[in-house]
């Protein structure tokens, strides 16, 4: 009786020496009497690695490995058999078998994987089904069909492409995994795998391309066993040509204008640079006018900065910059310089400051100083050609006194302006010696002539 019992038990003990595991990445799972490959898109392959261990205390010789059924194949040629697996085998002492399921139709597939050994074997039934892969279409952000191409994308800028994955099968499809590979490509965002798509149902998600450098990039989007190519090219970011905008279409002398710098659309990147101002006088009398500056800095250069996404540049940290037009006829030119690559040419804006009559800023007429009539005129002559003056005196009743007086101070002005670069502003005092009572001398009107015409002070009442 005891002998019989041993005879019955021995084969069982021998069979139990082999154990089969399925390897999925770093995870191993015990394989029982059957193993599910699950749904596999038709005409694609799903591959599984099986490892055969010897858990017994004696070596086992594997004499045959067979695969009986349709749809399943050995992915790699088997090693030469027989193979002796030592007792208590480690992971490096196993028999490794790779089996693929490549369905060619939407049907169920199964096969028997059998390992025959001298002291017993092990087998399992492999099961899977072929399904039509969910249809992947792209929306905005990349090309419409695989391989999906993002085209040129500014370096370090993120460009997303939206996708729709739709199940056109009459049965539900499980999407086991979605993986994006490749430098520069990230995602998917919007789905969590695994998930099931019912017939006719679709899922939306996005993949983002952020090129680290100005080169071409490739990646893949793996949806289950389906692989889709991803392409994109990093392009050096370009700053849209900034627009120099002014608070007036034209300027004349002795004005203060306001400059703002806008970025059409918005800036795809941060950028810095300078706004420069230059001045070229029309007149040969002077070589420059130092009054023509940006007021924030008191100079002809101000820094600008743009942050990514901004539509307006900061000028010396402010939203705008005020400048003076000075008191010299000529051309003021604004230019923008930046080390950033720009679409088109750097913007340039010129303003012509035309010659004008003498600009009279303030005046006074005084007879307080004994024996003199003092007339003070403060103004500017942006043509640097002033000199001729005429004086018309009226008595306190408004009657003209004599025929007036005229004079040419051209040489005096020329001496004053000579070599100056600080504009044409002047303050002149013209004194008329008088004798006797000045009580009835009421007012004077002064006209000043330059190359642009004749200016008048209006009536100046003697104080």
């Amino acid at each position, binding site marked *: 009786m005891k002998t019989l019992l041993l005879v019955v038990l021995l084969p069982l003990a021998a069979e139990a020496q082999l154990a089969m595991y399925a390897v999925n990445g770093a995870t191993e799972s015990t394989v029982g009497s059957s193993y599910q490959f699950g749904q596999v898109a038709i005409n694609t392959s799903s591959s599984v690695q099986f490892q055969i261990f010897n858990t017994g205390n004696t070596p086992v010789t594997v004499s045959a490995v067979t695969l009986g059924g349709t749809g399943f194949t050995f992915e790699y040629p088997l090693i030469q058999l027989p193979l002796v697996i030592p007792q208590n085998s480690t992971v490096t002492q196993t028999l490794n078998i790779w089996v693929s399921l490549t369905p060619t139709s939407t049907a169920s597939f199964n096969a028997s994987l059998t390992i025959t050994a001298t002291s017993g074997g092990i087998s399992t039934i492999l099961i899977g089904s072929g399904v039509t892969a969910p249809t992947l279409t792209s929306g905005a952000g990349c090309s419409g069909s695989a391989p999906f191409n993002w085209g040129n994308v500014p370096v370090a800028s993120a460009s997303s492409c939206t996708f729709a994955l739709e199940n056109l099968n009459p049965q539900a499809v499980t999407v086991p995994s979605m993986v994006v590979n490749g430098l520069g490509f990230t995602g998917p965002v919007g789905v969590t795998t695994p998930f099931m798509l019912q017939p006719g149902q679709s899922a939306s998600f996005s993949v983002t391309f952020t090129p680290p450098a100005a080169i071409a990039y490739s990646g893949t989007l793996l949806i289950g066993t389906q692989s889709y190519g991803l392409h994109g090219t990093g392009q050096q970011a370009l700053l849209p040509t900034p627009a120099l905008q002014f608070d007036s279409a034209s300027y004349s*002398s*002795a*004005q*203060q204008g306001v400059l703002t710098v806008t970025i059409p659309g918005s800036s795809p990147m941060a950028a810095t640079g300078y706004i420069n101002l230059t001045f070229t006088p029309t007149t040969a009398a002077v070589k420059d006018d*130092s*009054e023509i*500056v940006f*007021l*924030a*800095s*008191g*100079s002809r250069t101000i820094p600008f900065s743009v942050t990514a996404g901004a539509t307006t540049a900061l000028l010396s940290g402010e939203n705008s910059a*005020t400048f*003076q*037009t*000075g*008191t010299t006829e000529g051309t003021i030119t604004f230019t923008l310089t930046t080390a950033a690559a720009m679409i088109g040419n750097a913007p340039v804006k010129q303003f012509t400051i035309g010659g004008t009559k003498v*600009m009279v*800023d*303030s005046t006074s007429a005084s007879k307080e100083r004994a024996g003199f*009539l003092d007339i003070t005129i*403060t*103004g*500017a002559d942006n043509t640097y050609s002033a000199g001729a003056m005429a*004086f018309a*005196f009226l*008595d306190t009743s408004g009657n003209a*006194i*004599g025929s007036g*007086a005229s*004079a040419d*101070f051209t040489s*005096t*002005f020329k001496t*004053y302006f000579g070599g100056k670069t*600080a*504009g044409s*502003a*002047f*303050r*002149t*005092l*013209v*004194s*008329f*010696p*008088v*004798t*006797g*009572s*000045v009580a*009835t*001398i009421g007012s004077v009107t002064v006209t000043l002539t330059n190359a642009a015409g004749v200016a008048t002070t209006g009536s100046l009442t003697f104080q």
Partner: protein
Amino acid sequence: MKILTTFAICACAWGQSGIDRPQLGKMLDASGAVRTVYGIVASVTLGDPEQTGVVSQACSKTFCLAKTETAVVSASGSADAPAGPALFAFDGDAAFVWFPRSRQLAQWQNGVLALIDSTVDGEVLSMRACAGSVEFAVRRESGEWIVKLDGSVVDSLPRSTGPVMLIPGGVVYATREEIVIRGLRIPLARVTSFSQMSAGYLQVRAGLLDYVLRVEPGREMLFQLPGVQQ
């Protein structure tokens, strides 16, 4: 006949006594340096520093006063003074000086600073000379007032949270977004102070920028001053 004779002399003997660079007054830059402002309205340049270490300064038609931390200084001399900034009100060749930190009033004349007994309630915002005495713009809980040295109220001022400057025959004050002068409202935010550059111009500080306000009646105008090149 006498007039005609007079004019006949003028026509023969007039003369241009000279041309020079016009000045709008003197400004105090952010570093405490006093500089001359040259030019005409809206077209100005700044001169080099003439005095440094200044905390307050103002000019009349004829002279300027500067307050350093411990002295009042003019071209005619200097005198020890209470610490801190000062407010000025010019009166011919003299001036009243208010020291906010010590709440003392003094009169400056010929390089001498003489303290004057005074008790002014409230925060003194500005001063102006008036008939040999002085009037104060003060901010109190009850509002802003113009008061005399004896405390009597001359007038009330519109409520404002910003600086106030008494000018001959009027007042300039700043609200949150604008400057108001004789009913004229000039947009400018962040105004923190006024100071008298000359008889006709005020320096206005707003944020980190300096402006000039022309206060001549009928010709009021605001324009920006150039920054000081670093």
